């Protein structure tokens, strides 16, 4: 049987998530033993008109990107959104806090009106096309991606956590950042990273996006009690929480 064809496509992003794949070393060889990469700009130049699995990185910020993404969707059996830019819009959605004309001037200055620089408010992949699986995080954890790919190849539904980072944080037996007088977004952020940041003495800044039903009001209501303000919380939420379905 021919190996399943896999394509990796990138849109507006830093390509840091793809880099995580390139850096998998031994597991990259394991992955390549199972699938046949037919489109991967960062590593090779082949192309195909059908993909068993399309892995899409980055946000959609231009009309022509939306068009290209629709074509990818049409030619793929499964679409996996890779990394925060793709799954939630990530840092690209910071621009959605401003008028797009102002953003263009801020970024491109005098050239702001050049047609090829026209951009739209940032969108996550699922806001443009149907997405089958999401691998969250900025950057992703490559093991999660390979787990999802193995599940797909085995015909098994991968389980994406719908519980907060606190679960993994507690399992790692970390002291809570709140007890150290810091605001942590762990209680409202989707787990799956093994509480990477709190396990290294840093608060969670929410890169995996909110859980399905985040209690943002609860997070806000305790700020005073920890000697913090609502703005302290909001400024933490801006990085990955801008222009999300749930907001304070």
């Amino acid at each position, binding site marked *: 049987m021919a190996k399943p064809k896999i394509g990796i496509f990138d849109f507006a992003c830093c390509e840091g998530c793809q880099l995580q794949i390139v850096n998998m070393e031994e597991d990259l060889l394991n992955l390549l033993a199972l699938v046949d990469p037919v489109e991967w700009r960062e590593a090779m130049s082949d192309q195909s008109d059908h993909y068993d699995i399309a892995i899409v990185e980055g946000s959609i910020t231009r009309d022509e990107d939306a068009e290209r993404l629709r074509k990818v969707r049409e030619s793929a059996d499964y679409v996996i959104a890779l990394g925060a830019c793709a799954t939630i819009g990530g840092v690209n959605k910071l621009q959605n806090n401003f008028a797009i004309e102002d953003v263009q001037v801020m970024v491109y200055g005098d050239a702001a009106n050049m047609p090829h620089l026209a951009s739209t408010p940032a969108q996550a992949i699922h806001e443009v096309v149907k997405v089958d699986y999401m691998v969250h995080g900025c950057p992703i954890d490559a093991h999660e991606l390979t787990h999802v790919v193995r599940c797909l190849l085995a015909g*098994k539904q991968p389980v994406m956590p719908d519980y907060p980072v606190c679960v993994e944080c507690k399992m790692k037996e970390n002291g809570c950042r709140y007890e150290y007088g810091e605001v942590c977004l762990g209680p409202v952020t989707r787990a799956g990273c093994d509480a990477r940041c709190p396990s290294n003495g840093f608060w969670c800044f929410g890169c995996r996006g909110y859980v399905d039903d985040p209690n943002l009001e*609860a997070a806000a209501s305790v700020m005073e009690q920890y000697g913090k303000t609502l703005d302290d919380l909001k400024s933490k939420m801006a990085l990955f929480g801008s222009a999300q379905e749930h907001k304070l």
Partner: protein
Amino acid sequence: MNIKRVTEKEFAAWVDALTPKHTLYAPQAKEDRFAFDRLTAGEDLRLDYDVSILPPKKYFLPQKEVLIKFDRKGNFESVIAHEPFVLFGVHPYDFVAMDQLNTIFEQDNYDVHYMARKEAATVVVSDVQVASADVFAGCMGNATVEDRDGYDVLLTRLDDGSYVVETRSEKGEVLTGLLSSAVDADEVTLQQREQVWNRTREQLQKHKLEMTPEQIPALLDKSYDHPLWAEKAELCHSCGSCNLVCPTCYCFTVEDELNWDMETGQRYRQWDGCMLTGFATVTGNHNFRDKKEARYRHRYYRKGKYVWDMIGEIACVGCGRCISACTTNIANPVEVFNQLSEEQQ
């Protein structure tokens, strides 16, 4: 079995002698908190810990453990760990919780994975030297465990820094045998130990339960529709922190994982918690506790009534961990039980 009085110096020498001979897990500093971890140098032992972030149950029921290895043809093999180890310095309330889990994992479906670890363990209980901020074991009857069985050695530190070391079992003798030069505890020593216990029972009441623990089940019988559940749950993140740090919580979820060969794999279990949104989701995506107030209430019933109905024990030992762990401060069992009780009058 014997009871020894051991000077501070003798005690340190004893621990130093134990570490190369046994696999010891003991409380140690983790930044400015404490956690049980492998003890390799006696000087790292912190029996003055107030509370460990996670209870020592993690050595009987690890956060994540492989249960079986399988292949897709249907062959499988159970993975059962039974290397002997010593849990050194368990606080009395945590021992009570472990004893409760032992009962539960032993009855009905005998859990081979859990029980193998339990059988392999030697448990050294250490009386609390420093009370944590939220502990209320004194209200739950679990501040000291001199009247209970099931552990192997009991350590009590006296005011002059010396330890009373009581051997409770043959397993315990293997450890305390190395202490043979220490003197037997005399009457005065035993009285001093009584005094420490009395003081500890007083001190471990940072929150005051305004009832006896045995009254909780009846209180809950009358409280199912109380407005408190919904009011408190407003601030709940469904984060499960209160479950995960609890020494009597034992829920887990089971998943299968395939290896790269796509043929072999392992089934593992991992801690779960009844406060998590998807905990009660079953086939067909039905969630029979989809409201956070229902989950919030469930936890208190689980602590104060369901386990009582099952084995006659309250499933809250008063460690206070959930109180500290909840970032929105709604997880305090004492506060909830007291409020329910007041509003019944």
